[in-house]
């Protein structure tokens, strides 16, 4: 399986690392894109990057419960200071990216990031 570092994801997407800069050399196994947190909570994958257009505290809480430690926020969504605080407590990397969900996923897929299913 092709692993991808969070650093590579950030470079491909020209994304801003807004939390967890020190952990961007971590490996990611696969990506999952959803604005529905209930779907994220059904996953068993490890070392997953969550790609979402939803930017609220429940995205970070969902990631915390589901052991997701990398979240990519698409469509220019902005991470709030409260979200950053909880993400930092849980050792997560948060990326903000300007592309649409479709474009973001396409670029990551083309670069070899694997889907969950």
């Amino acid at each position, binding site marked *: 399986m092709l692993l991808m570092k969070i650093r590579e994801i950030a470079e491909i997407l020209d994304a801003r690392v807004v939390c967890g800069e020190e952990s961007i050399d971590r490996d990611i196994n696969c990506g999952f894109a959803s604005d529905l947190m209930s779907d994220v909570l059904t996953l068993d994958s490890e070392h997953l990057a969550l790609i979402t257009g939803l930017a609220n505290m*429940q995205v970070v809480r969902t990631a915390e419960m589901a052991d997701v430690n990398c979240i990519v926020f698409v469509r220019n969504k902005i991470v709030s200071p409260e979200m950053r605080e909880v993400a930092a407590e849980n050792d997560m990397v948060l990326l903000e990216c300007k592309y649409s969900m479709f474009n973001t996923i396409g670029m990551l897929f083309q670069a070899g990031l694997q889907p969950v299913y």
Partner: protein
Amino acid sequence: MEFNYEVEGGNFAKAGNAASSVKKVLKQLNVDPKVIKRVVVALYEGEVNVVAHAYKGNIMVDIDTARIFIRIQDEGPGIPDIDLAMTVGYSTASAMVREMGFGAGMGLPNMKRNADSLKLSSKVGEGTIVELTTNLSK
């Protein structure tokens, strides 16, 4: 070892505080990470349900060497048809809840999937009690 948490209905900013706190406790107790994930996902879904549907609630978590027992009790509208509520895709969630990324009718089924046993009782106009048990013994 018993822990109690209060949950405010409608307050999405705090939804997940109880599950987050329980996750820290279970990590300190060196519980298997796979078990921790199942427990906290089920608890978080339950906590979100209280925030989404009830006026207020209480979460009790009791941990011993054999099992983790969680009781989520709320004062709220109750569930008129439990079988229907357990059906994947059925939801009575508001637009606000959906904007938060929930309300797809997956919460209760996902709680059931992640617990070794789930007991649900409800009185319309009074509230709902969900009891989750996760076994720890190998």
